[in-house]
């Protein structure tokens, strides 16, 4: 027999259980809260996350590989549906990239069923769906400074100087576009451009503190941690008060007992 009343025992037990269960979340809340209070001193808004895992979690890490083609002194790259002129994003595409060439007046990019025209400075001039005139582009090349398309038949089409009309030609003296590989430095710059300004440490800590880092239900987990903290405060006061009351009664009893005992 402990002599504890059930309600006090329950409060104490739940105080302990909830305290143990919420300990990790409360530690996260506390530490991230302290860090956010000192964002400027810790330079959280100036430090950028480099972890592939975290960048991938935020959707900032490209899934596919970069495909690049040299066009004179420039490179046209497609990285996860984004078309880049060097490292400058110019357009989006959902199609497979078949190559790029520098024609006399424009740069021509070929996709499955679309051509994209850029100026030599990388400005988007026009997007041309190929339609049934010729479709299913396999590769792009150059002949007499004019773009040439190879289709799956295979048939070969050469554009006029303004790239408005296409004529069928024979496969002769065509220089086909070849893929190129970006060096580490260029790739790093491209990735930086792909990710925009990147992911600051402050954003991650803020999302950790709010629970958003753990997905759409993360905020409810952190809400639960906050409710747990409230419960711990109340149950802590209850346990402390009930113990104090008990101690007071005990002292009173002992004092009374001793007094009455000495009289015998």
């Amino acid at each position, binding site marked *: 027999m402990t002599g504890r009343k059930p309600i006090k025992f329950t409060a104490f037990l739940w105080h302990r259980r909830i305290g143990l269960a919420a300990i990790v979340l409360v530690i996260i809340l506390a530490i991230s809260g302290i860090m956010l209070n000192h964002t400027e001193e810790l330079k959280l808004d100036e430090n950028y996350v480099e972890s592939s895992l975290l960048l991938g979690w935020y959707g900032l890490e490209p899934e596919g590989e970069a495909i690049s083609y040299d066009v004179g002194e420039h490179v046209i790259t497609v990285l996860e549906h984004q078309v880049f002129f060097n490292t400058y994003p110019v357009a989006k595409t959902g199609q497979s990239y078949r190559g790029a060439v520098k024609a006399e007046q424009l740069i021509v990019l070929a996709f499955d069923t679309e051509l994209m025209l850029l*100026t030599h400075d990388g400005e*988007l001039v026009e997007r*041309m*769906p190929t*339609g049934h*005139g010729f479709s299913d582009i396999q590769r792009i090349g150059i002949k007499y400074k004019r773009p040439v398309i190879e289709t799956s038949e295979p048939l070969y089409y050469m554009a006029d100087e*303004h790239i408005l*009309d296409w004529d069928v030609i024979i496969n002769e003296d065509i220089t086909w576009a070849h893929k190129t590989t970006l060096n580490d430095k260029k790739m790093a710059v491209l990735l930086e451009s792909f990710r925009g300004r990147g992911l600051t440490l402050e954003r991650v800590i803020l999302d950790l503190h709010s629970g958003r880092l753990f997905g759409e239900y993360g905020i409810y987990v952190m809400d639960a941690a906050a409710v747990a903290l409230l419960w711990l405060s109340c149950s802590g006061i209850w346990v402390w008060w009930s113990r104090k009351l008990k101690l007071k009664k005990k002292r009173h009893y002992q004092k009374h007992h001793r007094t009455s005992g000495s009289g015998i």
Partner: protein
Amino acid sequence: MKNAVFIMLLTLLTASAHAGGVYQEPDAFIAEVFADDPPKAEVIWPDTELKAQIKEILGHDYNGLRIRYWKKDKRTALILDEIGKDKPITTGFVINSGRIERVRVLIFRESRGWEVRHSFFTDQFDNAALDDDAQLDRTIDNISGATLSVRAVTKLARVALLLDKTVNAQQES
């Protein structure tokens, strides 16, 4: 009975989900408009003033520096893109003597709002022209649930009329 209703609903939902797509290839549209004898494509390079006018209609710059058109006699055909909600809607226009002769949605890529392809909507543009404020001279009724698509096609109709006007002015000068 319940099963029949369920299957009917499922069929309707499936039909709706697949309602978007390529309705007509752009060059097939051009071939049809000019009775299989299309003229050579020409391009207009909008100057600063025209770019500003297009921007005022669309609310943003047109995506590209040049716009392709096909012209024969007084008829001009244009194929233009504008984003409804997330993805571009490719629409073909035929302008005859400054008035819209035909509007056809050629490619619809979004998941909602495909109702703009139907003739009950596109027929509203027949004979429409631009007024002095570069607005259509008539009201185009909205389709509930397709507001953004309606807005996009209506804006493109105004751009098409504006481009036709510019092309005619250039040819006359």
